[in-house]
C-alpha cells in the first residue's frame, strides 16, 4: 500500500510503505560469504606460515603486483569497513583519538589505529601485522601517512608508489612523463622485493595474474552494462559488498567464479524484465558518489521506500579498470601505471564532470547523491562545482550529504532523512515537469 503525504510546499509525495518495496537480493548473493571466508582463511595461513609473506596495501595500489610475487594482500581499509559493519568502528576511532589522533583525520585510518592498538579480532575488523607495507598516494595522502606511521611502529619496510597528480588540463605529453615515473618505480619495487625478501620477478606469473585480473574486471564491466537495464537489476545495496573480490582478489580464481554467478543471475533477471525492487515500481534511478556509510548500510536499502535505486557508483566501478593483455610487459606496466594515475574515483574535476554527465545519460539517472565525506578531503574536493555542473547541464537534482563513511558520529538520522525526502520531492517535480 502506498502512503501519500503532503509536504510544506503543498506537493504530494508518494511513499511506498516500508514493508512493501524492498531490495530483492540475487540468488547467488550469499556466495560472497564463501569468497570472504576463502580470503580470511588464506590470510590467516599466510600470516602464520613463516615462508609466506604478507603486505598491507590500499586502494589504488596494483594488487596484481603482490599476487605476482606470491605476497598475500592484507587490506586495512577493507578491515575498517568490517569494523564499521560490525558496529565496532566508533569505539576504535575513539580509542585512536585517545591515543592523540585528531578528530579531523580519516576514520579508516583511526579505525585501524584503534584496531591494532586494542588487538581486536579479525572478525570484528582486526588485522595482522604485515611483513611489509606497499602503498601509493594516488588517491590520497592519508594512505601513505597512515601506513608510514604503522610501518615505523612495526619496524617493517615500506614501498610507496609516488603518483603525480593528474590535474585538470594535463596534456598527453605530461601524462606520459608521469607514466614514465611510475614505470621506473615498478622496477624499484622489484629491487625492493629482492632486497628485503629475496624474491625475483616472474614474468609468466605476472602475466597469469594480469589475465585473471582482467577477467575479473571484464565481468565487473559486464555487470555494469547489465545495470543499465530498466528496471534496475542490481543496486548499490548489494554491489557495495559484492565488489569485494576487486579490492583484494584480482589475479586469483575465487572472485571470477563468484562474479560469473552474479552476472548470470543478473542476465536472467534482465531477460525476465524484472528489477531489484520487488514491486517492479522503479521510479528514481540514482548515482551515489563516494564511499557508503559502512556503519549504516541500511541507507542503501531504505531508498527502496521511495522507489529509488542506486544503479551506479563511481566508487565500486573504479575498482574494475580493464587491463589489456595483448601487450608486452613494458606496455602492460605502462597501462597499469596509467590506471593508477587516472581512476574514476580520483578523476580530476574536468574529467569527473564529463564522466558523470556520460553516466547520467547512459544509465538514465534521475538524481545524484554526493557523499561529501568529512574523512576524505580528496574525494570531497570540487563537489560543489560538480553539483552545479550536473544540475545545470543535465537538469537533474543533486543531493550533497556531509557525513563520514566509518564514523557514525557524523551521521544524523533526522537531518539525513529530511534532506533525502527533499531530494525525492525535487525528482518528483522534475518528473512532473518532464512529463
Amino acid at each position, binding site marked *: 500500500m502506498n502512503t501519500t503525504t503532503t509536504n510544506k510546499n503543498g506537493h504530494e509525495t508518494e511513499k511506498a510503505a516500508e514493508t512493501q518495496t524492498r531490495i530483492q537480493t540475487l540468488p547467488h548473493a550469499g556466495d560472497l560469504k564463501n569468497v570472504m571466508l576463502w580470503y580470511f582463511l588464506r590470510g590467516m595461513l599466510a600470516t602464520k606460515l613463516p615462508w609466506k609473506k604478507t603486505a598491507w596495501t590500499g586502494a589504488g595500489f596494483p594488487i596484481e603486483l603482490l599476487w605476482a610475487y606470491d605476497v598475500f594482500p592484507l587490506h586495512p581499509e577493507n578491515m575498517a569497513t568490517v569494523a564499521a559493519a560490525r558496529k565496532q568502528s566508533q569505539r576504535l576511532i575513539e580509542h585512536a583519538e585517545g591515543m592523540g*589522533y585528531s578528530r579531523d583525520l580519516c576514520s579508516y585510518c583511526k579505525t585501524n589505529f584503534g584496531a591494532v592498538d586494542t588487538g581486536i579480532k579479525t572478525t570484528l575488523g582486526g588485522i595482522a601485522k604485515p611483513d611489509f607495507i606497499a602503498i601509493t598516494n594516488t588517491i590520497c595522502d*592519508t594512505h601513505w601517512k597512515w601506513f608510514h606511521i604503522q610501518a615505523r611502529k612495526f619496524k617493517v619496510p615500506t614501498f610507496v608508489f609516488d603518483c603525480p597528480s593528474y590535474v585538470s*588540463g594535463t596534456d598527453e605529453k605530461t601524462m606520459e612523463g608521469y607514466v614514465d615515473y611510475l614505470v621506473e618505480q615498478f622496477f624499484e619495487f622489484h629491487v625492493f622485493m629482492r632486497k628485503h625478501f629475496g624474491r625475483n620477478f616472474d614474468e609468466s606469473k605476472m602475466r597469469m595474474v594480469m589475465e585473471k585480473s582482467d577477467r575479473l574486471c571484464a565481468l565487473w564491466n559486464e555487470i555494469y552494462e547489465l545495470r543499465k537495464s530498466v528496471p534496475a537489476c542490481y543496486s548499490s545495496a548489494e554491489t557495495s559488498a559484492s565488489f569485494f573480490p576487486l579490492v583484494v582478489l584480482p589475479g586469483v580464481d575465487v572472485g571470477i567464479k563468484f562474479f560469473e554467478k552474479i552476472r548470470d543471475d543478473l542476465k536472467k533477471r534482465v531477460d525476465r524484465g524484472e528489477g531489484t525492487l520487488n514491486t517492479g515500481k522503479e521510479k528514481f534511478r540514482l548515482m551515489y558518489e563516494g564511499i557508503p556509510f559502512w556503519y549504516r548500510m541500511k541507507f542503501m536499502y531504505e531508498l527502496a521506500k521511495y522507489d529509488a535505486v542506486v544503479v551506479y557508483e563511481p566508487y565500486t566501478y573504479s575498482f574494475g579498470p580493464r587491463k589489456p593483455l595483448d601487450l608486452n610487459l613494458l606496455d602492460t606496466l605502462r597501462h597499469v601505471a596509467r590506471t593508477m594515475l587516472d581512476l574514476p574515483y580520483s578523476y580530476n574535476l574536468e574529467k569527473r564532470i564529463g564522466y558523470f554527465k556520460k553516466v547520467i545519460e547512459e544509465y538514465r539517472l534521475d538524481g545524484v547523491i554526493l557523499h561529501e565525506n568529512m574523512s576524505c578531503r580528496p574525494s*570531497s*574536493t570540487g*563537489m*560543489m562545482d560538480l553539483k552545479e555542473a550536473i544540475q545545470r547541464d543535465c537538469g537533474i537534482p543533486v543531493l550533497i550529504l556531509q557525513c563520514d563513511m566509518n564514523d557514525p558520529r557524523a551521521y544524523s538520522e533526522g537531518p539525513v532523512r529530511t534532506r533525502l525526502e527533499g531530494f525525492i520531492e525535487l525528482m518528483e517535480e522534475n518528473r512532473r515537469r518532464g512529463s
Partner: protein
Amino acid sequence: MPNGVSQGEKPTGTGYTNITGAVHVKTIAYFDSSHDMPEEVIDAAGFIPVKIMGDVHKSNDPADQYLPKFFCPAARSWLTEALSRSGDWEGIVFAHGCDATNRHFDVWKLHVQTPFLYWFNSPIKTDAVAARFFRKELERLIAALEKQFGTQVMEECLREALRKSNEVKKRLRELSALRSTKDVSNREYLEIITHCLSSSKDASIAALDSALNEWKSRGPFPAGKRRFYLTGSDITYPEFMDLLDECGIRVVRDDLSLGERYFATSFTETGDPLNAIVDYYMNIPRPATKLSIGGRVDFILKSLEETPVDAVLSQNLKFCEPYAYDSVIVNDEIREKGFRVLHLEREFTPVTDHQVMNRITAFTEML
C-alpha cells in the same frame, strides 16, 4: 605590506623600482603547502616569486562557496586571496602539496582569473628516480614559462637566482641564530621570513642586512622567557607568534616552512644549476607532506642537540591532516629523547585564543 611590493619599492606600472633604482619585473605567485616550489626558476625567468599566504584577517566566505569548511582554513584563505588578488600577478604556479591542496588546482582552474595557472608536480620521495622526475618537472616548468611569457630562462640567470637565494638563506640563518641570544620577538622573526617570501631577492637581502645590524645590537635574551622549539603546521600570521610571546615563550628553533626549513640548506653554486635545484629540494628538511617521518624527527633532534631549549611546542592548525598524522609519533619520539613536548590544536584566527594560552601557561609553569 602587499605581496610582491617590498618595503622601499614602489609600483611603476610595468614593474617595480627598488631602493637602488633598478627596475624589477612583475610577480608570479606560487602556491605550496610547505617549501616545495622552486621559486628560483620564477626568479630566473624574470619575475618576483611571491608565496601565497592568505590573510587571516579576511573571511573565507569567497573560498567557502567552492570548498567545504572541513578543509584546512589556510588553504581556503589562499583561494580567497587568489580570487581577489590574481589580477596583481602575471600567473600562478601551483606545487603538489597535501590533500588539502592537490585537488584544489581544479577548483582554482575554474574560478581564479589568471592567464597562467600551472601545475608543478614535486615528488614526495627523494631517491634517484624521484630526482630524475623532479628535474623533468623543472624543465617542463621552464618551458611553460618561456612559452607563456616569451622569455628565456638562461643558465646564467638560474645561476644568479641560486646565488641570490643563497644570500638570503645565509642571512636568514644568521638572524635565526640570534633568536636564542638576543631579544628578538617571535613576530619579528616570522615577519622577516614572510617578507623574504613576498619580495625580490635584492629587496630581501637589503632588508635582512638592516635587520641583522639592528638585531645584533639588541639586548640579551630576556630573563624570564622560555626557549622553545616550534614544530607542526606552518604559521602564516604573526598574531599566533604574539600569543606565544605573551605566554612567555620565545621560539629559538623550528622546522617550519616559513622558518628554518626555508633556509636550513643552500644551493650548490657550481655545476649544472638545474641539478643544484634538484639536489637542494631533495635534501631540505622534510615537511609532513613528504616522505619520511624519520627525516623529520632526525632534523628536529639534531636542532635540539645544537640549541638548548626548555621544551617543544607542537601545534596543529585545525583540519591540517599531514601534521596531525605525524604529531603523535613525532612527539612521542622527541619525548623518548627526554624533551618535554606540548601539543595543541589552533584555529586559523588572529584573535587571541584564551584556551590555547591557558594550556601553554599551565605547561610552562610546570617546567
